[in-house]
């Protein structure tokens, strides 16, 4: 059904079924983004710590992880996790007695995207860590800090301030890359939009809707990150 006056058909304004799908997709995108933001940042912090390890094999494993996930397409990674790893894992009985994969498609999307963005985050944190002068670390050591304490209380907080702009960029990319979860049928924004335009043949309308929603979502993230950047800014240090 097309509105006769304008020819623009925004089904989610008058069709409660489409509206529910749209809202569901919107929150699915937000939820997937938040989960991946969280875990990719954790991976970045831990990975950067492992990169500075005294043990050569720890460093090599961290480096291998980065190479693997930075040098391969995220869609291929997601397919690998969902189709290859997912098939190798045992199946479990669900509440109706049917066999089901151990992890659902949302979990695999979250895992693969977290690892993908995490690989970049490791490098981003490393750049920040390298900007912390050796003498500052030495001062911490002289005060009795062990390596982990110095990393957590001194190096990391300083590194954060240096690498926030780069981290910003990567996290923005991550939010946009959540649309890849479409490919393994996670009902996020792009996926539900596709369902709607398949039903109502309103492709241009849904495309514009998508663009507007992503501008708003990423805008919100950037705004939040900038506020954070300002909040932790200290006189005479970093950006």
């Amino acid at each position, binding site marked *: 059904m097309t509105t006769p006056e304008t020819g623009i058909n925004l089904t989610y304004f008058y069709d409660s079924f489409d509206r529910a799908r749209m809202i569901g997709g919107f929150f699915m995108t937000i939820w997937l983004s938040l989960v991946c933001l969280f875990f990719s940042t954790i991976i970045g912090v831990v990975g950067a710590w492992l990169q500075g390890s005294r043990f050569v094999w720890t460093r090599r494993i961290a480096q291998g992880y980065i190479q693997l996930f930075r040098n391969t397409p995220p869609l291929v990674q997601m397919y690998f996790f969902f189709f290859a790893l997912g098939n190798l894992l045992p199946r479990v009985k669900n509440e109706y007695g049917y066999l089901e994969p151990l992890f659902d498609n949302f979990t695999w999307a979250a895992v693969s995207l977290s690892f993908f963005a995490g690989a970049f985050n490791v490098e981003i944190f490393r750049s920040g860590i390298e900007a912390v*002068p050796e*003498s*500052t670390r*030495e*001062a*911490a*050591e*002289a*005060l*009795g*800090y*062990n390596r982990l*304490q110095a990393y957590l*209380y*001194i190096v990391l*907080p*300083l590194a954060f*301030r240096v690498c926030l702009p780069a981290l910003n960029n990567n996290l923005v990319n991550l939010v946009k890359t959540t649309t890849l979860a479409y490919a393994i049928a996670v009902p996020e924004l792009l996926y539900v939009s596709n369902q709607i335009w398949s039903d109502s043949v309103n492709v241009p309308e849904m495309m514009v809707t998508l663009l507007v929603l992503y501008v708003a979502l990423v805008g919100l993230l950037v705004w939040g990150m900038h506020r954070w950047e300002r909040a*932790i800014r*200290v*006189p*005479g*240090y970093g950006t």
Partner: protein
Amino acid sequence: MTASQPWTPDQPIVRIADVYKSFGAVEVLKGVSLNVMKGEVICIIGPSGSGKSTLLRCINALVPIDRGSIQVEGLETHDPKLNKLELRKKVGMVFQQYNLFPHKTALQNIMMAPVTVLKQDKAEVEVRARVLMKKVRLEGKEHSYPGELSGGQQQRVAIARSLAMNPDVMLFDEVTAALDPETVKEVLVTIRDLAEEGMTCLLVTHEMGFARELADHMYFTDRGVIVEHGPPKEFFSNPRDPRTQEFLSQIL
């Protein structure tokens, strides 16, 4: 390397015996020995590259030594089994570039190590930190960030930060070398106060007037060895070794 031994105050608090240290092919310390008694102030002078700063860094094990022995209160500082924290609780260090933690206020800089490393009660540490701020004459600057303080003020915060760990020995590594001439004095006054309270101090310095006034014992190092040492009066008025004579004539 010898193991740690029990220590009594009549023995040297810092005992350095025949220490060798190389960085790659460069031999920085070639058999350095010196003893410091509790409450003594010793000043180490010498041309740059003579190994003075490395020697200080070896004392609190920031730099490992190749051979010899360094004991602080009987703790063998380069024993691989040594709990480094035990050593660092005894030895405080102040650096040329202050090395304050720029993301923390002056007060927080002082409080951080006792709270995170020694797990001391935050409220108690804060009381002590405020006393220390007063002691280094920086009342009112508690909530300033290092970036808002002058070099001399930052250096005094750094001294207070070390003192918060209640060390028995303080190492000062050219602590006034990066300062403007007018702020040098305020830092030296702080160190003098400390020395007069009986703190054991090892200073690497270029402040000859200060050394002459404050030191109990002077050491002159050149190319990794102690060339000459003695009480400041004798050391400055009557240097015996030609290398000491040349250095002093250049600097005084």
